[in-house]
């Protein structure tokens, strides 16, 4: 389905990455797999370094750290936040909402709309849509969108399908009204019939965690994983992206009446370099217009990867000028979504380490 939004803009983006950096070369000793094949995997998929939280670090820790940084540097004021949206698949607790936990830890005002959204890889675009909708209300002047996940804590170190690419991170995006009347176009599709392609089977109410769900099982190809761990059907996800994403973006551009050449950057979710290269090939987009270097430096941090692609690659350009960008998120749900907008003149666009 298609959406349009008017007079809305992103005014700043901050990403927060754990200082703890791990390398694929160190970790491949955990895999029950010949070293030459692991090196091949590294080369093809673009695995190298990734950032993982230390044991016990939660989503609210990364978010509070980032917001305190913005307050301290005068980039955002504590009392001007009217809504706080948190998009995560790894909340601190089942209840209460982690957005309320963040509000409470920071001592923010009570006149505030706090909301958790349980989305992942498509969660940056979905979170922006929700932020734009809230800004239709006069009482809401400024929305803080937080994307954050610490999924390494739910990933088996002996599963080379997932562990080498997982990364933990958070991003804080400030969204507000724009004085200029520009149109933002977006579209979104979901297919819950394929919900098992990316899932953590145990730990919820359907299959509570027990000693049995913590037992590592050989799931083929010498990968070991428990039911408490994240499970990704890599080839099904690859297939999904190749089949669904190019037509979605084509349809968005047609809806907006904008040609492919008029887009400065295609800022996609970052599953791995291989998948993004194949996506760019299929869409006939030059690699220079589609950043694909997030996984090799930081890992795939679910809904945080698009803000990370922005702060890592385009910070200077977006602080000084404007770019026409096409955002696109796809994954868990399954959900896939894209958005065409002018991005720029950001009051901040940076990346910091936690702690």
């Amino acid at each position, binding site marked *: 389905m298609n959406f349009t939004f008017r007079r809305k803009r992103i005014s700043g983006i901050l990403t927060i990455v754990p200082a703890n950096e791990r390398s694929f070369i160190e970790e491949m000793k955990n895999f029950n797999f010949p070293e030459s*094949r692991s090196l*091949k*995997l590294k080369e*093809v*998929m673009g695995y190298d370094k990734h950032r993982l939280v230390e044991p016990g670090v939660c989503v609210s820790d990364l978010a509070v750290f980032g917001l305190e940084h913005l307050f301290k540097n005068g980039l955002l004021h504590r009392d001007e936040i009217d809504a706080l949206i948190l998009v995560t698949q790894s909340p601190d607790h089942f209840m209460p909402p982690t957005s309320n936990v963040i509000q409470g830890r920071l001592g923010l005002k009570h006149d505030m709309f706090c909301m958790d959204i349980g989305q992942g890889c498509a969660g940056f675009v979905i979170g922006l849509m929700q932020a734009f909708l809230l800004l239709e209300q006069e009482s809401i002047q400024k929305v803080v969108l937080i994307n954050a996940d610490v999924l390494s804590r739910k990933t088996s170190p002996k599963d080379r*399908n997932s562990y080498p690419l997982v990364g933990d991170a958070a991003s804080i995006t400030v969204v507000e009204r724009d004085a200029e009347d520009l149109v933002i176009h977006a579209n979104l599709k979901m297919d819950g019939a394929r919900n098992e392609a990316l899932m953590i089977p145990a730990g919820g109410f359907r299959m509570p965690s027990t000693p049995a769900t913590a037992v590592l099982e050989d799931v083929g*190809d010498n990968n070991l994983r428990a039911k408490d761990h994240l499970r990704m*059907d*890599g*080839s*099904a996800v*690859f*297939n999904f992206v*190749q*089949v669904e994403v190019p037509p979605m973006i084509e349809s968005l551009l047609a809806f907006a009446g904008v040609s492919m050449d008029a887009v400065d950057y295609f800022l996609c979710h970052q599953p791995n370099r*291989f998948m993004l290269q*194949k996506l760019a*090939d*299929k869409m006939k987009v030059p690699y220079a217009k589609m950043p694909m270097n997030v996984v090799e430096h930081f890992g795939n941090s679910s809904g945080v990867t698009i803000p990370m692609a922005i702060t890592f690659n385009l910070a200077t350009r977006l602080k000084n000028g404007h770019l026409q960008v096409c955002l696109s998120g796809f994954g868990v749900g399954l959900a896939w979504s894209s958005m065409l907008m002018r991005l720029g003149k950001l009051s901040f666009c940076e990346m910091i380490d936690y702690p």
Partner: protein
Amino acid sequence: MNEFLTKIANILEENAVKETDELKAFAQWDSLAVLSVIAMLDANCGVNLRAADFEQVTTVGDLWNLVQSRKCS
């Protein structure tokens, strides 16, 4: 067919492969090779296979036949 055989050989890091060769017999045949083959077939033949499709495939020739049948349907 020749181009197909060359592309499969490249993925498997072999000088050449024959129709009668069994995929599982190659040292390089693993989940990464499967993904590379899926990507190659998507780009070159417009055919989207899933990993599960490979369960019905034993030889290089079987894979060729599967791709041809998907092209027609």
